[in-house]
């Protein structure tokens, strides 16, 4: 496993810690190694770096002061919410400051008529829906970690969730952000109105994984809770049949709220962990949820049932009430953690492929796993082709962790060559930056970094994430081919 070296804390950073103590209050500044170790990793525990300083911010001013002092000292900083990220996006800098935002937890009252709510970044995802529900509203993005993950983290990662097939991602539900830029300046991107003149910097900020600044307040759009929701659990004897069912549903012009798929190994794990009562003997299950007006849901639901049967579904179970629906979802949402019941260790992978390539890619993943003698459990958002292969291994077996890491990486290469992406919702973070050059050209990445240089010319905000090689912002921007490849014949044209 990869561990990141931990250079000693520099004198400059030690001085910065003193300044932080006097500015934001000594009780909010941690420098004790034992306390700091709590923050050495996020949800991706195989990368660990102990930060030099942790600031437990309680309000916007603490964030502004901390960022400004970091900027003046030239010390990098990393923002962290609940720390549930799965790509090492909140991995600290060893000689830097970690700004913990989980105490910024204010939720303003819901504006029900405009379906908006303003929240601070440390607010837990599920709290937003909890507050909105009495008004008949909900916050659509629902990552599986929604009980514990923060809105600020969701914004950094552009979090998705099971229901983003129909409702879109975090970026489609955040209308405005108050952002502390890497030099400590505060700007407002977007707002409460649906449009604002100027560049859509909010669109660029969301999903930038903490590399463009720190959000201190967010204006969220809420959705109306649909009139009807129906959920169905369908068992199949083959993965191919399950995948074909997904394609047929989409081809029939039906847009479900969610279509989730689990294979035999994932089902076994979920059963062991939460006894969700999935159909015995199923090689694959689909959890299909439709929502909307009652008549629409009823009609489309029976259509979906027929499609599944025509693809050899051997058991179709319909949730009779909210409790049964919750149990169906429990199996799915607990699947990652559940895999711990059937394997000592595992890597959670996140990749995307075009939905139509599901059967062939799943077949290929099985072949690749067989070749190296490892098992892969598949849990995924089938409706949008977002795979979560869980590569199982045993640390106690010499070399198996390395094999598993290599297989997880090879699965990403397969996603890229299938026309997909190396991440659908977990982000690039520290973990996948080496793969960015496979998915994008050098020109693509340089162009993205033009945005980075505009926001953060000194590269202090969450350095070492997303990009394989940071661009030096002093460089003269220009194509790698530059003027020397300029066709001299063009002189005749212009």
């Amino acid at each position, binding site marked *: 496993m990869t561990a990141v070296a931990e250079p000693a804390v520099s004198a400059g950073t030690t001085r910065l810690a003193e300044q932080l103590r006097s500015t934001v209050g000594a009780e909010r500044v941690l420098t004790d190694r034992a306390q700091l170790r709590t923050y050495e990793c996020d949800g991706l525990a195989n990368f660990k770096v102990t930060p030099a300083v942790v600031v437990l911010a309680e309000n916007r001013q603490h964030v502004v002061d901390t960022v400004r002092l970091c900027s003046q000292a030239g010390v990098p900083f990393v923002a962290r919410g609940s720390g549930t990220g799965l790509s090492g996006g909140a991995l600290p800098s060893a000689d830097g400051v970690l700004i913990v935002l989980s105490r910024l937890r204010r939720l303003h009252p819901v504006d029900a008529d405009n379906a908006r709510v303003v929240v601070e970044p440390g607010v837990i995802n599920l709290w937003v829906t909890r507050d909105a529900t009495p008004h008949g509203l909900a916050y659509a993005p629902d990552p599986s970690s929604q009980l514990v993950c923060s809105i600020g983290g969701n914004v950094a990662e552009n979090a998705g969730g099971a229901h983003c097939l129909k409702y879109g991602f975090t970026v489609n539900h955040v209308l405005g952000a108050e952002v502390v830029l890497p030099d400590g300046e505060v700007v407002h991107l977007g707002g409460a109105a649906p449009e604002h003149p100027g560049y859509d910097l909010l669109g660029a900020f969301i999903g930038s994984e903490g590399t463009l600044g720190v959000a201190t307040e967010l204006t969220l759009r809420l959705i109306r809770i649909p009139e009807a929701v129906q959920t169905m659990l369908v068992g199949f004897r083959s993965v191919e049949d399950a995948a074909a069912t997904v394609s047929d549903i989409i081809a029939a012009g039906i847009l479900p709220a969610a279509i989730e798929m689990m294979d035999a190994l994932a089902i076994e794990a979920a059963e062991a962990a939460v006894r969700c009562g999935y159909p015995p003997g199923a090689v694959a299950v689909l959890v299909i949820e439709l929502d909307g007006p009652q008549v629409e849901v009823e009609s489309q639901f029976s259509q979906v049932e027929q499609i599944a049967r025509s693809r050899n579904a051997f058991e179709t179970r319909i949730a009779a009430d909210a409790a049964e629906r919750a149990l169906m979802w429990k199996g799915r949402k607990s699947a990652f953690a559940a895999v711990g019941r059937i394997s000592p260790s595992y890597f959670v992978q996140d990749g995307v492929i075009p939905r139509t390539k599901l059967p062939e890619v799943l077949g290929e993943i099985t072949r690749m796993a067989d070749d190296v003698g490892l098992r892969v459990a598949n849990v995924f958002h089938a409706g*949008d082709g977002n795979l979560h292969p869980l590569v199982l291994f045993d640390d106690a077996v010499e070399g198996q962790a390395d094999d598993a890491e290599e297989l997880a990486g090879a699965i990403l290469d397969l996603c890229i060559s299938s026309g997909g992406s190396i991440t659908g919702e977990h982000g690039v973070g520290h973990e996948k930056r080496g793969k960015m050059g496979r998915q994008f050209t050098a020109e693509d990445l340089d162009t993205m970094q033009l945005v*980075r240089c505009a926001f953060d010319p000194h590269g202090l905000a969450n350095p070492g994430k997303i990009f394989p090689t940071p661009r030096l912002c002093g460089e003269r921007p220009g194509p790698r081919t530059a003027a020397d490849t300029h066709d001299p014949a063009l002189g005749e044209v212009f």
Partner: protein
Amino acid sequence: MTTATVGRRPGRPDEAVGGVVPREVVSPSTVAEVAEVMRAAAADRLTVVPAGGRSKTSWAAPPSSCDLLLDTSRLDRVVEHVAGDLVVVAEAGVRLADLQAQLGAAGQLLGLDPPEPGATLGGIVSANASGPRRLRYGTARDLLIGATVVLGDGTVASAGGKVVKNVAGYDLGKLYTGAHGTLGVVVSTTWRLHPVPVARRAVVLDLPAASAAGPLAVRLSRSTLTPSAVELVGTAGGAGQLLVLFESIAESVAAQASAAVTLLGGGSEVEELPATFGRRPGSPDDVLLRLAYLPTALPEVLAALPHGTAVTASAATGVAYAALASSDAVDALPALRAALARHDGTAVLLRAPEPVRGRLDHWGPVGDALDLMRRVKERFDPERRMSPGRFVGGL
């Protein structure tokens, strides 16, 4: 590259962008040709203004200079439509109407319906144009999943991809959306598609006072009905007509339209949309504005407009179009902007007749992120050659 392949020729007076006649016009037909043109323009330090169907050239401020009009209309290939994935890749010069016809044959659509005739995908992205169905499908920023641009120096750069769910790297498609060609030339676009609804029904309700659309739209928004559009056509201080559009399966549109009549306290059900549906208000002699504000502020927005102003509003979303008489506009615009600001609102000029154009502030106040926008522009286009002067703050 030869002059023949890019169709280079002198600009004509009728091709003026905001009154500025381009010195030359080029019409490259491939991305590689666009890159060659841009490298050559960089070598000669030419200012470049991209244009597609030219249906919205007045939506941004006039350029301070236009050496070269880069006509994207020959970039007109639908590169790839993967129906099973509900995704299409199409070049910037493809006309929306042509694309919809092609997608429609496969039972799919791109959920954008700006009414400007002849509009191209590149132009719609660059102007961030939308229509009534934004209530259901969102706008270009919600549907564009990948984009390729050619920067001012000829660099060809893509962001996003061909899958709907994708968080790898910065989502630059959003940055190019609404940037009016000031960061680069959009050459290719990749979109998320939707199935064509099989049935449609609308409820039309005449309103003695257009402002009544405000509380009615709130009532609709707070119900479980799922209209595709809630459109007001009317005049400020006068009467109006509200149209609530349902698009789904037959049983659903019938049930929802009937429920809407009850909820609204009246209205008649129609199968066909009126010819005016989605059209921008007013005539070419008017000053056309796009207003955006908190949705519930619609009555206050109508009250802030000069009496008799022709208005259309996507009443449930907080976007409206207002056609001010030219004689009113110069005096009315600052007060209107001040009134809108109380609702996080803004007013952007989409069109103004020649005599008043130069006397109107095109974009209005931008807020505290303007410096940051300037820094973004400086990084992408340090020589200020891409559509100079067209954007906010003179960018």
